[in-house]
């Protein structure tokens, strides 16, 4: 029995360690669809990628994020990509997001949202990296490689349409709290009408009242990010492909 307890607490400790190391890695904030944190893209390729991303979002509800970073340590590139994707919430309500992450120390990772996985399978993601990305990245033509990759993915996704982000989750929490408040008020007033039997009122609480907890996951369309309106709250589960170069 004691041994089991020890094992459980050891597990907790390990999990705590893991989560705390994840928490330590501060992820950057999104600046837009194109985030050249490593400063390796020229103006022309930035503009080209931006155009592709804007068109994808406006016409097909797909959010494409391009990110360059000097390195991803202490996280490995794939873990970094998965965390960044979910932290930023790339993609609309149908998880229609794609993240292209280029780490200048020699890694390219493409992460697909849950909604994209079906139309853009990992094998295809990898083939595009091999054909369009790697030859350029090996010659340090980072901007060109990213433009080619982005336009290849856009071509593959042509004709796929997803729901465009809607900002409707803000009100629901307030509404539910207000409804509960109203119920309590009504309940109290009712109790007052029958003074001697007031004690029975206590049973009213037995009706199942589901109190809404805080919403899990990133909130769609966080608006406190300066000029950029934020991504649509899409999620991913580690899909996509990556290469080292």
């Amino acid at each position, binding site marked *: 029995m004691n041994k089991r307890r020890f094992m*459980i607490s050891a*597990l*907790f400790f390990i*999990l705590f360690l893991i*989560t705390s190391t994840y928490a330590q890695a501060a992820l950057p904030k999104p600046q837009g669809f194109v985030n050249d944190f490593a400063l390796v893209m020229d103006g022309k390729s930035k503009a080209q990628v931006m155009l592709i991303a804007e068109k994808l979002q406006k016409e097909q509800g797909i959010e494409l994020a391009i990110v360059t970073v000097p390195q991803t340590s202490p996280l490995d590139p*794939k873990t970094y990509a*998965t965390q960044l994707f979910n932290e930023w919430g790339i993609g609309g309500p149908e998880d229609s997001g794609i993240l292209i992450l280029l780490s200048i120390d020699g890694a390219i990772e493409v992460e697909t949202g849950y909604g994209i996985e079906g139309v853009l*399978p*990992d*094998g*295809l*993601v*990898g*083939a595009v990296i*091999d054909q369009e990305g790697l030859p350029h990245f090996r010659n340090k033509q980072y901007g060109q490689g990213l433009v080619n990759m982005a336009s290849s993915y856009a071509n593959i996704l042509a004709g796929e349409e997803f729901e465009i982000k809607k900002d409707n989750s803000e009100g629901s929490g307030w509404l539910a709290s207000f409804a509960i408040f109203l119920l309590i008020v009504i309940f109290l007033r009712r*109790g007052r009408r029958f*003074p*001697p039997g*007031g*004690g*029975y*009122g*206590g*049973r*009213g*609480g*037995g009706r*199942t*009242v*589901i*109190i809404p*907890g805080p919403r899990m996951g990133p909130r769609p369309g966080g608006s406190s990010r300066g000029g950029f309106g934020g991504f649509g709250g899409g999620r*991913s*589960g*580690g*899909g*996509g*492909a*990556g290469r080292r170069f």
Partner: protein
Amino acid sequence: MKKSTIVLISIAVILLILVTSVVGKYNQLVELENSVDGRWAQVENQLQRRADLIPNLVNTVKGYAGHEEKVFADVADARARLLGANNPADAASANAGLDSALGRLLALSESYPELKADSSFIRLQDELAGTENRIATERMRFNEAVQTWNATIRKFPTNIVANFMGGQAKSYFEAAPSAQEVPQVQF
């Protein structure tokens, strides 16, 4: 107002607070248990996906390295063990067993250059790697849900409600140490 009325009202208020807090705790536990189950379903989905990819991969490799029967048999065994697992601990060790069997299968590409360059082999490797990443992600989320559940049912006063509804600690998706042993390589 009569004294008895005040007493009655206070009893009513205390009862109300008690009942709502029990109901709240109960709902919270139900939600947590559902999230653990939901997360587990996600892990299982990805494990299934991994198992589904293997026959194609094996067939591709067979086309170039047909006589490596030992490797193919090991992969088939490990895959069958994964498909037969029905709880997180078994699935985790079966999955770890599959890791090493698949490692040997993929290592064959080093001795067969044509296999290494085969485009469908590359595509399947991508699919497999993507699935492994998905398993890692879903496993982390499942373990987090289990951790929250296990911690919540032990805390006071939630543990009373948990006891009442028969909630028990759940096991993590974690391979037993034996499954992680390095396989013996014979030359």
